[in-house]
Structure formats: structure tokens, C-alpha cells
């Protein structure tokens, strides 16, 4: 009955076609998630993420292919799989006839947790999720963030091995979002495998150990967020502000920089008041501003033949390798030519650039 060996989640050649639909919602998806991993399924709306989670959580029947959770084939033994997994859906499905506390306690009772134990776990989780004061009111009175917290608490009541979170922070305020992220990281520390679907790039980059990018039911890329962004070669830049030596010519300096291994192209950027603002994105790691036409993720460079005023030279290097690894060689060239560097900025491709690169810019 075991499929996929030691994987916490295993999906093989999964196809789901809904009746009367011209295309497959999931179209030959294959991936594995290791125990204790946080796995992000990233994709535009309608990419097949929720359907995939539906198959894995026994609520959607696959047309073909296989899927297993905690080593149990979900099609062959849905009851066994349900005992080991938990789901936090996109939209609240809390039992509104029950109080929040009863929602937790009954969920555990459905899963066969004993009375004393389930009452104790419920009290503990309500405390952890900051809901103790509102544990015995009507669920209808809960805000979106509170309902989301309660649903995560509910999912943990029977101590699942694999937790599925379907867009866990969509529509939450920043505080609630950070709270949910912290809880998810705690789960990893406890060894729970987490599969989360999202189209929030920061969420994926911040939380996930590995990310699968899905579109039209197919897997387009699968790797760590770092590797995915690194894979976007030619999409990283290094911006330099240098003061060339008085004996040097700007064009000669640029030509020398272009010869560095990993630099695809170098150009002089018009001198503005300063370099384009490269404020850190919300995720902190991605240092790219909003999208600009042309190369995704980078501010358009102005004409390289623009008038240069002042002694400072602004140069942009387009890289095919990791920018950090090129800093040394670039600085070495500059030092050799007795140019002094006054500012360096790395523009790294973000997961969003990878995402747009793979799935295109068309609206869904």
C-alpha cells in the first residue's frame, strides 16, 4: 500500500479532468515532498494548485496517476490517509453551529482523540493562537484572521503528519500574516510536513524549503527559492558608482569589466541624482523595485550614451552568474585600473521574476 517510499507526499503523473471541461485541471503533475519539509506550490489562479491539494486530501478523485500522503495511497485508502493529514482551506469552513472551542474538540473527537486529551489540547491551542478569550462565543462573530487562526488550530488537534494549507494568508492583515508564518515555521521545527499553496511570492520565498511552480496543471520548475532565482541567468545586475583614475577612459574601463567571466554586458547608465531606488522588497531578500518594461524586474536603463556630468561614472553590469560571486573579480579589475568605488548595489532576481518569467504576464 505504500507508495513513494519515505516521502511525506508523493504525486506521480497526476491528471484531473473535470467533466465537461476542455482541458485538464491537473495535467501530469509529479513531485515529492520529504518529511518535515515546507513545500510551496506556486501558481496563478486556476493553475491547478487547489485541485492538487483536493486530490491529496481525498476530496477530489484523480482521473489518472497516483498520489500518496504519509506513505498511504489516497485513492486506495482515503480513510487511512485522512487520519494522517489535515487541511486548512482557503475559505472558512468552520462549523457555525458550534462554538470555536467545540470546533476544536469535535474535530479531535472525529479523529478518535480521547475526551480528556482533546479538551486539554484545545485549551492549549486556543491559548497559543490567542483565542482563549473568544473561545466560547459564536463563530459568526470571528474576523477573517481569527477564523484562519482557529482553522489552523483545528487542523493541529489530531496531530497530523502532513498539513495542507491552501492560500493560508490571502486576505489577512500583515499582523495576522506574520503570526501564521511563525506558526508554520514552528510546525517545521516539530517535524510536521507542510504543503502550502500560494500566489504570494514573499510567502513562498520566506517559508518554503522548496517551491514548485505550476501553471495549466503542469509543473514548470521545482527547486529551492534561492536556486530558482539563481537560475534566472542574465537577470541579475550589479550597479556600480566609480571614480575612474584620471588617466583612464570610461569606455576602456567598461570594456575591461565586460571581460570579467560571468559579466554578459556592461553599460554606462545616465547619471541621475542617484541610482534608481533599490529599496528592499517586503520579503527583505529581493532587492528589486516594481516591474519595468523590458527585462523583468529591473528599472529601464537610460541611454548609455547620455551626457555624463561630474566625475562619477555609473555602470551597470548584466550578469549570467551569481552577483555575489562576481563582486571580487569586478573590484579587482577596478583596483587594477586605480578606480575608486563609491557605491555597489546588487539587483537580484526575485521569485516573482521567476514566476512571471515562467507563467507570463497575461491576466487570469
Amino acid at each position, binding site marked *: *500500500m505504500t507508495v513513494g517510499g519515505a516521502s511525506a507526499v508523493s504525486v506521480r503523473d497526476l491528471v484531473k479532468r*473535470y467533466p465537461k471541461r476542455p482541458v485538464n485541471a491537473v495535467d501530469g503533475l509529479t513531485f515529492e515532498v520529504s518529511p518535515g519539509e515546507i513545500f510551496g506550490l506556486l501558481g496563478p489562479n486556476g493553475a491547478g494548485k487547489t485541485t492538487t491539494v*483536493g486530490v491529496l*486530501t*481525498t*476530496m*477530489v*478523485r484523480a482521473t489518472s496517476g497516483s498520489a500518496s500522503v504519509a506513505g498511504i495511497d489516497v485513492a486506495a485508502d*482515503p*480513510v*487511512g490517509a*485522512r*487520519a494522517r493529514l*489535515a*487541511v486548512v*482551506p482557503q*475559505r*472558512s*469552513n*468552520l*462549523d*457555525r*453551529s*458550534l462554538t470555536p472551542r*467545540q*470546533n476544536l474538540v*469535535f*474535530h479531535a*473527537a*472525529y*479523529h*478518535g482523540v480521547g475526551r480528556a486529551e482533546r479538551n486539554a489540547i484545545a485549551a492549549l491551542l486556543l491559548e497559543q493562537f490567542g483565542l482563549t478569550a473568544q473561545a466560547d462565543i459564536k463563530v459568526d462573530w470571528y474576523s477573517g484572521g481569527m477564523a484562519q487562526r482557529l482553522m489552523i488550530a*483545528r487542523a493541529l488537534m489530531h496531530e497530523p503528519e502532513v498539513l495542507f494549507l491552501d492560500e493560508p494568508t490571502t486576505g489577512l492583515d500583515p499582523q495576522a500574516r506574520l503570526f501564521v508564518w511563525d506558526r508554520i515555521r514552528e510546525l517545521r521545527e516539530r517535524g510536521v510536513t507542510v504543503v502550502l499553496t500560494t500566489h504570494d511570492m514573499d510567502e513562498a520565498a520566506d517559508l518554503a524549503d522548496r517551491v514548485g511552480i505550476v501553471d495549466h496543471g503542469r509543473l514548470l520548475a521545482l527547486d529551492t527559492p534561492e536556486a530558482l532565482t539563481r537560475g534566472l541567468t542574465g537577470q541579475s545586475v550589479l550597479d556600480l558608482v566609480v571614480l575612474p583614475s584620471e588617466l583612464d577612459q570610461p569606455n576602456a574601463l567598461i570594456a575591461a569589466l565586460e571581460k570579467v567571466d560571468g559579466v554578459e554586458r556592461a553599460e554606462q547608465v545616465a547619471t541621475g541624482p542617484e541610482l534608481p531606488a533599490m529599496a528592499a522588497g517586503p520579503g527583505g531578500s529581493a532587492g528589486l523595485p516594481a516591474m519595468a518594461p523590458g527585462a523583468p524586474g529591473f528599472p529601464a536603463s537610460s541611454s548609455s550614451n547620455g551626457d555624463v556630468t561630474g566625475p562619477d561614472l555609473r555602470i551597470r553590469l548584466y550578469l549570467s552568474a551569481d552577483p555575489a560571486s562576481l563582486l571580487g573579480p569586478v573590484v579587482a579589475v577596478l583596483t587594477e585600473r586605480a578606480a575608486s568605488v563609491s557605491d555597489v548595489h546588487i539587483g537580484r532576481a526575485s521569485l516573482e521574476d521567476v514566476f512571471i518569467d515562467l507563467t507570463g504576464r497575461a491576466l487570469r
Partner: protein
Amino acid sequence: MTALDTTVRRSARAASARRAFNAILWRDVLVTGKEFWILLLQVALTPLFMLFIFAKVLSQANYVSDEYGHLLLPGIVALSAFLTALQSVAFPLVMEFGWTKEIEDRLLAPLPTNLVAVEKLLFATVRGLISAIIIYPIGALVLGSAPWEPARLPLLLVVLLLGAWVGAGIGITMGTLVTPARIGIMFAAILTPLMFTGSVQYPWPELDTLPWFKFITALNPLTYCSEGVRAAMVPDVPHIAPWICVLVLIISAVAFTVTGMAGFRRRALS
């Protein structure tokens, strides 16, 4: 995997399914208990008004004879068993599947999906029975008297149980077919005709002057519940033979259970 392993796994699976089933049943008991007065209103209001107007008001005004009350009360008891069972599964299901999705947590419990449907059926049937038991003394109070045939109590209980089961089966079938947007029109189009073509207010054998209506009434499973209850409570009134009532009720119960379960599976698993 050895045969012993398989047996152990199977019995563990069965135990977990039983625990889940009991917990789901207990959830329904708790929720119903919390809102018992709602159940009482839902159960009692329509039948009691019917009884009051037809048997009390019209009889006081000499439009109907005093005996009519004793003919109507069994029909009302049958109607409340049938209707309560139907409503207590159909309305919640339409909302739970179509809108609130509240049922998902139960569908994700470690028990076969069919058992979640069975629990719905069982609980609705019990609610139907309870409402019939509640309505009888209240009806007796409204009328001032009520027929009572202790010797035929087993027949009464069997017919009411089956009537409630059929109601629950129709309820689960409707509940899985109707979308929340259509709930008003569908219930008006289905419930009202069911209530008035089910021999509740008249004995079926005496419809000879209206053969087309007699035919339509014969198609409504509620007819066999009303007739069976009348056979048990007022045997002197002409009625369909009890064995026919029981047989037709069993067949309908099984048929609607099958359609209801199929509908439930269709909605639960996509």
C-alpha cells in the same frame, strides 16, 4: 503484508470509523439540543395550524363533522414524521454543500464518506420520529380527544419509522441536488405538492370520484405512511392494507437512500 496484519488494520480502521461516526452523531445531538425550540417550531407549526383550522375551526363552524379530527390527526402525525425528517436533512445539506462548506470537517474525518451520509439519514429519521411523538399529544390537546389503539402500536411505530426514513431519503436527495440560489423555488415546488398529495387530509380509498387525483396520490410515498398510521390508529376508517403500506415504504426508503447516497458522494467528492 500478512493476513494477520490485514485483519488488524481492518479492525483498527473499523474502530476509528465507529468512533468518528459516534462523534458526528453526538455533534448533531448537541446542536439539536441547543436549538430544541427551533426543532419544536419547525416540527409543530405547520401540522398544528392545519389541524386547528380543518378539525377545530371548521368543525366548530359546522363545515366538517366532529369525526374528521380523528381522521386528520393520524395524517398529521404521519406528515410531521415525514416532513421533519425531510427538512432536517435537506435544508442543512443545501447550505453545507453549497455555501458554508461546514460539512468538510466531517468529510475529512477518518470514516468512509458513505457513513457521513448514513449518519445524516439516521439522525433525520430519529428527528422525524421524535416530532411525530411530540405532535400526537399536542394534537390531542387541540382536538380535545385522540384515537388510541395500544394493540396496534407496533404497526404505528414501524410505519412512522419507515415514513421518517423515506422523508430523510428524499431530503438527502433534494439536499444534494439543489443549489443555495434555488432553495426557495425548489422547496416550494416540491414540499407543498408533497404535503397535499399524501393522503394526510383524506383517506385514499375514498377518492373514487377523483380518479386522476387518486392516481397522483398513489405516487406519493407519504400516502402509504398516512394510510399506515390511519390503519394503526383509526382502523375503522377505510385504508390501504398495512402490508402494502409497509412494502411500498420499504421500497421507497431503499430507493431514495440509494439516490441520496449517490448524490451525497457526487457532492462530497469531485
